[in-house]
Structures are given as C-alpha cells and as structure tokens.
C-alpha cells in the first residue's frame, strides 16, 4: 500500500519540472529524434508488465500480462533502435563540418 501519497505527488511534480527544463532549448532540427527518444523511454512500462506478468495467479491473467510484455518490449527496444538510426544521419554531416572548420584553420 502507498503509505504516503504526498511523497509520490512531490516526486511527480519535481520530475515534471525536470522534464520541461532539460528539453527547453532543443532546436527544431532535433524535434523528431527527441520525440522518438522520449517515446523509447516510456517503454520502461516493460518493468510494470514484467511485474504483473510475474505475479499472475491464473492463466488468462498470465496471457494478458505476456501480451503487455511483448507490446512494451516493442516500444522500448524498437524506440531506442529507430532513434539511433535517425541520429546516425546527424553524426555524418557533423564530421564533414569539422573537416571544413579544420581546413579553414589550416589556411
């Protein structure tokens, strides 16, 4: 049982502010990968799915729990992988930029 909902409320509010603060300066170029990355993070619902499936007392509940585990794994793993695929595209031009900067410095 949750002995003190107030503690949970406190954590909820503080985490809410952290979430807003950390991404407040994102450039529009990164909106898509950021959305995708945040999407992968809420895939940790996998933990919840494992917990309920792992304490299932009947077969129907277990089956339902396993469905949740599958869905959550798709969300989490797929989310991180597709975000990485997007970001690879960004790291390549960055190198090119570094090179041109270096060339300017050489001259």
């Amino acid at each position, binding site marked *: 049982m949750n002995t003190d909902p107030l503690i949970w409320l406190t954590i909820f509010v503080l*985490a809410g502010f952290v979430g807003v603060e950390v*991404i407040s300066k994102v450039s529009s170029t990164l909106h898509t990968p950021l959305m995708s990355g945040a999407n992968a993070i*809420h*895939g*940790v619902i996998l933990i919840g799915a494992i917990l309920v499936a792992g304490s299932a007392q009947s077969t129907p509940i277990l089956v*339902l729990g396993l469905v949740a585990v599958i869905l959550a794994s798709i969300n*989490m793993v797929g989310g991180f992988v597709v975000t990485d695929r997007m970001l690879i595209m960004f790291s390549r031009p960055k190198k090119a930029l570094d090179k041109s900067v270096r060339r300017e410095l050489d001259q």
Partner: protein
Amino acid sequence: MTPAWAQLGYLVAAVCFIVALKGLSSPRTARRGNVIGAAGALLACVIVFLASDIQHLLPILAAIAAGTAIGVLGAYRVQMTQMPQLVALFNGVGGGAAAIVAIIELTELSGGPAPVFDLIATAFTIVVGSVSFAGSVVTFLKLQELMTTRPVVFRGYPILYGLGLLAALAFSVGLVLAPSMLFAVLLAVTGAGLGVLLVLPVGGADVPIVISLLNAFTGLTVAASGYLLENILLLIAGTLVGSAGTLLTRLMASAMGRSVINILFGALKGGSTLGATTVSDRPVKSAGPADVAILLAYAQRVIIVPGYGLAVAQAQHTLRQLVDLLEERGVQVDYAIHPVAGRMPGHMNVLLAEAQVPYEQLKEMAEIDPEFKQADVALVIGANDVVNPAAETTPGAPIYGMPILHANQARQVVFMKRSMRPGFAGIENELLYQPTTTLLFGDAKDTMSKLLGELKALTV
C-alpha cells in the same frame, strides 16, 4: 518491498533518462544521449528480475525476446520516409501495455478494500492508455495514407465527443466506487473511442503534432502505473516523458505557427472546406526538362525547396549530382529547409543527411527566406504546402498561419510535381498559377535524371 540496492539502481536508471533527454536536445550529444537512455532501460530490466519475485520466468523471457525481435526488425526495416508512422505505432503499443498493466493490477486490487488513489490511478491509466493506443493507430493509418489524410468531421461530432468524455468520467467514478472488470473494459472501450475521435479531425500535415501529444499521454499513463505498482522509476520516467512531451508538442506546433488547440479542433469550426481534393483545370504553364535545364544553367542563384515527394521518389542522390554540376558552372545553390518539410519537424534534415548533402548547404527558414528575392530560380521538388501562399492569404485554410518559404518571390519558380494533385494538407496552391511559375511534371527521380542529362549536354 523493493530492497534498498534496487531502489538505488532505479535511481541510477532515472538519472540516465534525464541525461538522455538532455543529450537528445543538442545535435552534438544526441546519439550518446540515446545510448545512455537505452543503458538506463536495460539496467532497470535487470534490476526488476533480480529484486522482485518473478514467476513464469521462461514465458516472460520469451515474450521479451519476441517483442525485441519485432521492435528491432521494424526499426531496421522501416524506410526513413515512413519513420513517423513507426514512432506512432511504438507509442501506441506502449500506451496499450500500460492499460493492460492497470487492468491486471485491478484484479488484485478488487480483492479487498482498495485505496481510493490507487483506483483513480487505475481508471486514469486504462482510459488514457486506450486513447493513446487507438489514437496512434489512426495516426498510423493517416500517415501511411491507408485512410484519407484530410480532416474527418461529421455532424454531431462535438456531441459524440462530449458524450464520450462524460461516459469516461462516469465509468471512472464507477470503477472507484465499485472496482470491477466490467468498468475496466467499459473504460478501455470508451478510451479507444475517444482516441479515434481525437485524431479524426486532424489534417494530415498536423498529424505529427498529435503523435507528440499522444506520446506525452503515454508518459503520464506510465507515471500513473508507477504509482499503482509502487515503482518509483516508472513514476519518474513517465512524468519526464509526460512533461517533456507536452512542451515538445507546443514547440512543434509553434514551429508551424499554430496552437495545439487549433490543430486538434480547428477543423470543427468548419473552416476546412477549402481542403477540396478536386483537381483544378485552371491553365498552368509547363515545360520539359530541356527548358528547365537551360533556366538553371544560366542562373546565378538557385534555391532548392525539397519536400516529401523528393524523398519518396528517392531522388536525393540525383539531386545532389545536379547541384554539384550547377556549382561547377558557378551557380550558387542552397537548400531551403522548412521546419516541417517532410512529415514531421526536422524530418527533411534527416532525409537529406542520409543522401550526404553537405550540412552547410542546408539553410534553415529564417536564414534563407529573405534570399528568395535575389534568387533567379526557386526549384520546388516534391514540396507543396510549405510554399503555399494560402497560409498567409486565406484565413480558414487548414495551414493558415503556418510560416512559409516565399518561393513566389524568386524571379522564376520551377515546380517539379507528379500531378496537379494538392499537397498533404489537401489545399489548392495559388503559386502553381503564378505567371512566373513553370511546371515540370513527372516522377521526381525520373525527371531529375532527365534534367541531369540535359544539363550535362549543355556543359559539354
């Protein structure tokens, strides 16, 4: 009770997620940020198996393996052009998982007298998780063009929506007063209905904003299920995504010069009658690749406005060769990247970077827009809505208020289009009928190769 070392482990994972979000908001650290986030998630999974008494170990591991395989396969198979709908699907299944977790948790709560807050959190998770799941499926169908991309509004929509909200509220109260599976199922069904209703009136071009909003919704359901399961990591991670996702939704909307409310419910005001799909038979000026090649070859300044059509035709690479050739001839060429070019904000940067277009040639809207006045030719390839003057001149158009690239100010405008079909937002583009506009019909890749050939012939 969760042991102290496991709590500390969850705290480490939570910090990983915060660092991940921070990293993802800057190009230099984005990839590392994502890896840190994945590491945090992996750590959390290991902890849950070690710290909690998990039965049915084998079936659960098998389920994780299956989900991982599907997720990885989907993520690697998807074309970069179709990535937005994949993100929508991933988000939807996450929301669905949260709703299922809450329903199962209810079967344990309903055994004895359950705390009221737990029941409220259960009702919230079921209804919002279902909204997220069903809404994401509809956004997928819209983006994949399996259903119409235009806003769908019907008579009695506001009444139905209002009834849906009331029903969700009534069933939630029912669930809290008399916890039972009946109310849980009713809530899930109502939530799914509300999710569909939420996305239907949103026009195709605005759908990415809705994905971001549903993403934030799923985050909140994960937070609520964290409270239910007394798992602090779920609470923190869910809340982070919920608040960051809400802000991101607003940022994306403002990049399009719109408010979130306007995007969600704008179509209800009945202003979107302009989104007619009828192909107009007004006269336009069209030319062949040879004429356009000459136009480009003897220009001094060319600005390219790439759009989704370019990416779909996979013509980025041919375009790059064309640009290289023009630059050899001394033509100054830049790409004008509208913030929402492609299917979502930042999508076009990803697509062009994939074709190895030099980063320096990609100019953001604020930087390049004033230069159209000096440009000899604006070459619009597979783009439409982002150069549509209706965004400024026609109040009531679905894209009204969206900042546009003023390609119309260039001396000559060349439009490469497949047909006279309107763009993703489904609105007629006045720019096509402007006297300075020339149309070059055909598949972008095919036309681009012909154009390249003509240009080579001129150079020799």
